């Protein structure tokens, strides 16, 4: 009965790993083959960008910072929405999937906000928690409520196909930090496209109810597509310098790729997307819908109760 492992039952090693007291746990099968060997991996993190900023190695121009703020806010607001799903998803597997997507979006947001903040001597948290509603630069699509699972999927479908085209172009940005964040984000967003496309197909081709719901969902969120592809003076200047892109230049590919999935799902005819009126937008100028105020109130309440505190 007394095995050598008895002694290590509570061993918690210095680096925070817990010894599970099982010989060969995590190293079963041949040699070092294992299904539980875990590593932190190696990728650009917001902390790395913050460090480069502190060392004075990188600093965005004011234009680039404004641009990073837009993209970062998109990710932040979406992550805030998606985070609400965890513990409420249709199945445990989907809790985990939506959690992964939310974490990806939050990661991108933190990187872009950290970088943007360097122009004004502000941290990611200063920007996230201490700006007011009209100072946020996210597009309206991102603040749309989760609705039912179909609405979340429809929103996610548009977002991920848009972000994929955006990040693909930005990997060639003349601003090295923007290019690096985009390169990391691109791969993650590619998976988000796949996840949402799979669900669009299933909801459209599943039951009568699911089809009715996904059609209704697209009608609810499609009005916010146009805004994503609107150019303005800032994007014009950045496209010229090569640091950013004109959103309108992403539209053709977006239309083609989303069109393919919607047609495979047999939704294109029924949705008649061209005839869905497009909302005026204004998010990039700080003009938001009624939804953002509530979202920010919840997100910022605790940080604002303790200004200057560290967490």
């Amino acid at each position, binding site marked *: *009965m007394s*095995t050598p492992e008895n002694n290590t*039952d*509570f061993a*918690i090693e210095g680096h*925070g*790993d*817990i*010894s*599970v*007291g*099982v010989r060969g*746990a*995590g190293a079963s099968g041949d040699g070092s083959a294992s299904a*539980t060997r*875990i590593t932190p991996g190696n990728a650009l993190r*917001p902390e790395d960008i913050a460090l480069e900023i502190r060392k004075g190695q990188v600093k965005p121009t004011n234009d680039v910072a404004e641009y990073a703020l837009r993209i970062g806010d998109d990710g932040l607001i979406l992550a*805030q929405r998606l*985070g*609400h799903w*965890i*513990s*409420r*998803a*249709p*199945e*445990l597997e*989907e*809790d*985990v999937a939506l*959690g992964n997507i*939310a*974490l990806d979006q*939050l*990661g991108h947001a*933190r990187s872009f*906000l950290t970088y943007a903040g360097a122009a004004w001597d502000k941290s*990611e*948290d200063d920007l*996230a*928690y201490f700006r007011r509603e009209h100072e946020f630069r996210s597009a309206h699509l991102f603040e749309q409520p989760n609705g*039912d*699972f179909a609405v979340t999927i429809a929103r996610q479908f548009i977002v991920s196909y848009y972000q994929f085209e955006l990040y693909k172009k930005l990997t060639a940005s003349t601003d090295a930090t923007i290019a690096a964040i985009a390169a990391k984000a691109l791969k993650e967003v590619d998976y988000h496209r796949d996840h949402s496309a799979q669900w669009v*197909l*299933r*909801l459209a*081709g*599943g*039951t009568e*109810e*699911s089809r009715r*719901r996904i059609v209704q969902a697209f009608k609810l969120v499609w009005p916010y597509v146009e805004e994503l592809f609107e150019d303005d003076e800032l994007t014009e200047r950045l496209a010229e310098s090569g640091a950013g892109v004109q959103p309108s230049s992403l539209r053709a590919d977006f239309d083609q790729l989303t069109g393919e999935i919607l047609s495979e799902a047999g939704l294109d005819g029924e949705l008649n997307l061209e005839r869905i009126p497009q909302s005026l937008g204004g998010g990039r100028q700080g003009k938001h819908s009624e939804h953002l105020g509530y979202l920010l109130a*919840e*997100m910022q309440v*605790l*940080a604002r109760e*303790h200004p200057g*505190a*560290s*967490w």
Partner: protein
Amino acid sequence: MASQNLQSVPAELSPEELEREQAGQAYFDRIISEDSRIEPRDWMPEAYRKTLLRQISQHAHSEIIGMQPEANWITRAPSLKRKAILMAKVQDEAGHGLYLYSAAETLGQSRDKMTTDLIAGKARYSSIFNYPAISWADMGAIGWLVDGAAICNQVPLCRASYGPYGRAMVRICKEESFHQRQGFEILLELSNGTPAQKQMAQDAVNRWYAPALMMFGPPDDDSPNSKQSMAWNIKRFSNDELRSRFVGMMVEQIKVLGLTLPDKDIRFNEETKKWEHGPLDWNEFKDVLAGKGPCNAQRLERRREAHDDGAWVREAAAEYARKQAEKEYAA
């Protein structure tokens, strides 16, 4: 239900069946005495199967219900870094529930059935999740105390005699390495912060300390099932033994936090070489377990809502799969 009824009918055994039962019991006893592992297709005593099924499904339910008090704070986390950490942690808990449901499924009960039982109030889960998480510091206290206690319980379970349970626990323990640490660091940060933050931290420790100690289960002399579980190598240490070890660890760690434990009676007993703690309110424990906790109804309702709201999605995906298979068959 159905599976249990069918399995628990010893009724009239034919001589061959009786022989097989006896051979099975002998084989099972040998595996247990060698401290080896029972696998799903092995013969096992019905009581062993039932005990495991109850324990593993309760454990799974605890992970799933345990997501709620923390998920409530994802949208309010006071920094983006903390938001990411909390999200990853709550997400892990969904995964852990899932691993455990899978282990329980190997004993012949579907996840759907277990979920239905939970929602119907027929299944138990760790009563601590029926307390509300009312401040940000609770995220720290839950990570440090609740996950800390859970880890003490779980590490020995990695060697549980039932293979699938042990394997699930190995994965869970590895993933949970960060859960307790992030909780500790939340409290440490608060304790070193403003007076209001420090007060928040102390208040959270005060509220979660006793419920965390009670997570180890009733005292040994009031825990009738423990003995059998230990004989079967499911449990490796008694409730009181684990609780005492846990108290010993907390006593040291609270010093680093610069906070205090709400227990004046903590002492190291030189004779028994064990840590002792003050009296715990076991009546409250039983009340909360029986459904009288501040959040019992709320937690179950939230779980029911998610399950019901998701029904049309699960059906749609199943129906789509059926249609695709049909198409492939026709082609």
